[in-house]
């Protein structure tokens, strides 16, 4: 598959009164043409900051990309001047957000908001922009698109607003669509409709999707590959089946086993991950998950783990993968007979 976007060692830091927060601490991944990758993790793990950094949406006086590269069409998005970046947003890379009500303008008709991007990027007359806007509304499943173009955001339901945001994002046929928790605010029956819409759109347009979510059910449904993030780093990544059926990082395992399943026996207690994520003002020297990890070794607290390749693009950053750790664990376990 053709490589579309290569993020390599991305680091993002925010300046606050309390000090510098290292929100993203070296994230690398590759997005191929036509695929969907999911970035999962809990609040504060840096998944949204990663997404916003690709779009360069973090204001410079608040947060900065302090390291790493983001290669797209031969250009490094991290270094691109703002003027060129503006040409890129909407036409090449688009983003949609969790809450349409606060992401779109309530005082401008949705038709104008859809046409804005078309006129800006394609420099076509209004009549042509309107034709395209009607077409895209139809694609996202809004009935009577011509009359609805004149309406305002408050005249639409939550699910419809999400469809409009998707329409705005897709109208200039971008290569990449970044979706930041697009279904989190929706009810499940509406969520199912929107996920179905993502899949239909991908089939029809071939757009590559980066899906940011904390819902592993959504990931299982839509993703080809998964990046699991914890405390600003990708701790495990791989094809979706590998992550769900053969998770190697204790955090990934913990996430999967702390979620109840509809088809599970409810007498078996959930196994939560104890504790809370670390403070990113002063991230730990070693593995950030060590403090909550039941398998943590001495080395985990002192040194960052290296990436281990497990074949078929399954990569995990964990000291337990080190052959020496495996020996140590076997040695510890053998006297007790387990």
């Amino acid at each position, binding site marked *: 598959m053709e490589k579309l976007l290569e993020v390599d060692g991305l680091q993002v830091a925010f300046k606050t009164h309390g000090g510098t927060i290292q929100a993203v601490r070296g994230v690398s991944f590759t997005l191929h043409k036509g695929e969907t990758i999911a970035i999962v993790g809990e609040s504060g793990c840096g998944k949204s900051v990663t997404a916003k950094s690709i779009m360069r949406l973090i204001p410079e006086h608040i947060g900065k990309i302090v390291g790493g590269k983001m290669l797209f069409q031969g250009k490094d998005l991290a270094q691109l001047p703002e003027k060129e970046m503006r040409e890129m947003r909407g036409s090449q890379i688009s983003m949609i957000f969790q809450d349409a009500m606060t992401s779109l303008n309530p005082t401008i008709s949705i038709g104008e908001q859809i046409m804005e991007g078309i006129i800006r990027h394609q420099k076509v007359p209004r009549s042509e922009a309107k034709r395209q806007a009607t077409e895209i509304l139809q694609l996202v499943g809004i009935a009577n698109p011509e009359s609805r173009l004149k309406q305002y955001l408050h005249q639409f339901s939550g699910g419809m607003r999400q469809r409009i945001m998707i329409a705005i994002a897709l109208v200039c046929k971008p290569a990449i669509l970044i979706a930041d928790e697009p279904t989190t605010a929706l*009810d499940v029956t509406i969520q199912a*409709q929107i996920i179905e819409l993502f899949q239909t759109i991908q089939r029809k347009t071939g757009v590559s999707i980066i899906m940011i979510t904390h819902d592993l059910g959504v990931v299982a449904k839509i993703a080809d590959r998964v990046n699991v993030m914890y405390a600003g780093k990708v701790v495990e990544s791989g094809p979706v089946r590998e992550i769900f059926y053969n998770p190697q990082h204790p955090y990934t395992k913990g996430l999967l086993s702390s979620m109840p399943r*509809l088809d599970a026996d409810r007498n078996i207690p959930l196994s*939560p*991950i104890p504790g*809370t994520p670390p403070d990113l003002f002063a991230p730990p020297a070693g593995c950030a998950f060590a403090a909550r990890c039941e398998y943590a070794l001495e080395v985990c607290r002192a040194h960052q783990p290296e990436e281990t390749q497990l074949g078929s693009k399954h990569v995990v950053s964990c000291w337990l993968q080190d052959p020496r750790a495996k020996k140590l664990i076997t040695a510890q376990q053998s006297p007790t007979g387990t």
Partner: protein
Amino acid sequence: MQKKPLVQVKNLTKTFHLGKGMSLKAADQVSFEIYEGETLGLVGESGCGKSTTGRTIIGLYQPTSGEVIFDGLNVHQASGQERIKLTRNMQMIFQDPYASLNPRMNISEIISEGMALNGLYKGKERAERVIELLEMVGLQKEHAHRFPHEFSGGQRQRIGIARALAVNPRFIIADEPISALDVSVQAQVVNLMKNLQREQKLTYLFIAHDLAMVKHISDRIGVMYLGNLVEMTESEQLYDKPLHPYTQALLSAIPVPDPDLEKSRERMIIEGDVPSPINPPSGCVFRTRCPVAKEVCAQQKPTWQEVEKNHFVACHIYQ
């Protein structure tokens, strides 16, 4: 085993008046019982009336009609001594752990306020009770003199639980207690609630929209749609054999964290949105989105009936 109902909800209706002659029926003729020692889950999408039902049961709202009986006492007509007895026995845990704790009170004050109002424990005993409660919910005694902003969302929810437990209640209404928490922390709070239930012999009404979590914690589940209770039965039964088309759609819409299953699963996607509760459809409120709606569904409201033992449903297919 003969189960004793602790809470009886009888034809509970709550209408909110919106002005200009408009009104919103948030709960419409809702009837069910909660047995001593069980967890009853109440699920449904936003605006279905599950929170209104919970808040009316505990007496935060006056019902428009219908009644709630708690251990023989009518919640909305109780006065004086009876009212005090009720508030001591019924407590609530809220969704937003940030908004439900007073930021200007320290944890000890938050937890002991209910004890003070009810005249429970005096002086040193009360301070000891606060520490006992903190430890019961997995916090430490050092936390007693800190303020809410010093805690994470999961810890605050634990404080909310300790506050509810302070007056030794028998019944706790938990309104979306884990929706604002991260996945790994949700499991911590749910396990805590389950353990406390066993130790303290508590009865729960667990209101949430996450059906997987509700199924995990509840003995029985009620499903609500647009102010109406549409189905209620034991958790396993609801999952294995959902009867109401809405319950079926809801179960089918939930993505399961299992890629192979997700790819092979035939999904029943219901079209459209939930209609406005200000102007709900005639007859059965689900008929506008129901894949099997018949003519009668528009004309008559389906009755609430027990179609199998302990399995109640309101749908014309089964009448």
